[in-house]
């Protein structure tokens, strides 16, 4: 036996970062499949591109620092970042924007702050916001859900759009793209249309946008899987969604003609995805239990505020980043009462 001084515990540990990340990826699969179903192959191409770029960027930076890149790649955190990014951006985003986004996320947001565990901002969301601010048009150019278009882009057609931006013969942009339901609603509300009129649009489904509602439902399933596997705790998703729901219900109850009904908020945009997969990124979220509830609830409220009165249609990314900044402070003021310490603290 070798002699060494190593502290207890002496038995095998129960978790491992890479297995956690793997579970997260697994939980994303149903939602991703639904997205591919509704929005075509472009999404898959984006995911593959983003993962390649992210892993390559991570390798390069770590090699440049004179370390072995393998362990960092093996923890799968870059893959998770890449996938989250790819499913947040339009499925026909030009490839170089994906590259730019991944460079921004991995090099600037993650590695420059010291790598895994040190980044104060969620890399995927930071990259998303960076691109949204820089290329607002491309970043809001969503595909029309498949059931609403005649032409279904094939794999190669999607690939060509992504690689050199050329549309298939005889197709116009208008034929394949449309605004997201959130976008559309904002636009029409600004033009003083009532909810009743807005809902006439073919983009509308049973309780959210056509297609979107099902994507969100599948992500919800993945999220529940994560909860069941104890990869995440309920605090952030539940507080986020309830605060969003409360805000939505309140305003809808007051003025149903100018405010969409609550389910629409939950099942549109990235609310579900954000609640279970993005806001729960441990590195950038709060770590205390009470902190997590405040963190989640604040994101939910901010999402509603930005969606309703802000300049951008969806707000998960902005809200998450804003709360990322506040996370250390929230943590500081929500420290638990330590065993044996009488008075209640914070």
């Amino acid at each position: 036996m070798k002699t060494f001084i190593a502290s207890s515990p002496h038995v095998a540990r129960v978790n491992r970062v890479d297995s956690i990340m793997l579970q997260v990826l697994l939980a994303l699969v149903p939602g991703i499949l639904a997205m591919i179903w509704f929005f075509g192959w472009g999404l898959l191409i984006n995911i593959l591109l983003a993962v390649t770029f992210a892993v390559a960027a991570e390798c390069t930076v770590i090699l440049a620092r004179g370390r072995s890149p393998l362990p960092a790649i093996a923890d799968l955190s870059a893959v998770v970042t890449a996938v989250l990014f790819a499913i947040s951006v339009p499925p026909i985003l030009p490839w170089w924007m994906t590259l730019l986004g991944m460079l921004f996320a991995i090099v600037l947001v993650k590695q420059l702050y010291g790598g895994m565990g040190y980044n104060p901002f969620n890399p995927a969301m930071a990259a998303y916001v960076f691109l949204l601010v820089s290329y607002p048009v491309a970043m809001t150019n969503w595909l029309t859900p498949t059931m609403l278009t005649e032409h279904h882009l094939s794999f190669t057609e999607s690939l060509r759009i992504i690689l050199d931006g050329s549309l298939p013969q005889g197709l116009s942009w208008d034929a394949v793209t449309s605004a997201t339901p959130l976008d559309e609603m904002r636009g029409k509300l600004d033009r003083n249309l009532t909810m009743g009129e807005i809902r006439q649009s073919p983009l509308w489904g049973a309780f959210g946008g056509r297609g979107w509602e099902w994507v969100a439902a599948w992500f919800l399933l993945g999220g529940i899987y994560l909860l069941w596997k104890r990869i995440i705790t309920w605090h952030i998703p539940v507080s986020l969604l309830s605060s969003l729901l409360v805000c939505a219900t309140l305003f809808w109850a007051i003025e149903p003609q100018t405010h969409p009904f609550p389910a629409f908020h939950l099942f549109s945009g990235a609310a579900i995805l954000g609640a279970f997969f993005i806001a729960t990124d441990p590195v950038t979220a709060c770590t205390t239990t009470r902190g997590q509830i405040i963190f989640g609830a604040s994101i939910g409220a901010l999402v509603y505020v930005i969606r309703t009165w802000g300049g951008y249609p969806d707000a998960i990314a902005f809200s998450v980043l804003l709360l990322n900044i506040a996370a250390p402070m929230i943590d500081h003021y929500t420290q638990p009462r330590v065993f044996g310490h009488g008075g209640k603290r914070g």
Partner: protein
Amino acid sequence: MLTAILAIAALAVLFGLMLGYSAIRFHVEGDPIADQIDSLLPQTQCGQCGHPGCRPYAEAVARGDDDINKCAPGGEATILAMADLLGREPVALDAEEKLPAVAFIDPERCIGCTLCLQNCPVDAIVGAAKQLHGILSKECTGCELCLPPCPVNCISMVPVTEEISGWRWPFPSTPLKETAKSQPERAAA
């Protein structure tokens, strides 16, 4: 554009003035900083720092005449503590760190000359003229100042044996795979 630059320049000047004023206004009289530094030094009084004792070294550091990395007995811990106190960047030790040791007088050879005794900064040697001298190993700081004056070279340094009561858990040595900085300021203070 120009207004922006001007505004920022004005702000910079304003803050500079405020800083300068507060530096004068809140300047601390006396030399408590030297006291504070002295309290961080190990008090071995060995002179390895190039000063005749810990206190003079503390004063030199407080005046800015000497660097914070000269005290060998204090080692890394002392440098870190001083860097913390003075708000400076820690620097590598400018000497070799030694294992703690205490002086030992070979009773066979000691001629009782009292020379070592005069040199001991902490009076850790007991004895009188022409008598065998002994060292109070509890008080000895291991400064080695008693070694050179001994005419018969009967004093040697013996390493302090590590005792369970003073044992420290080693800093975990498993290398962190991927970390750059020692500690990002995540916890908002």
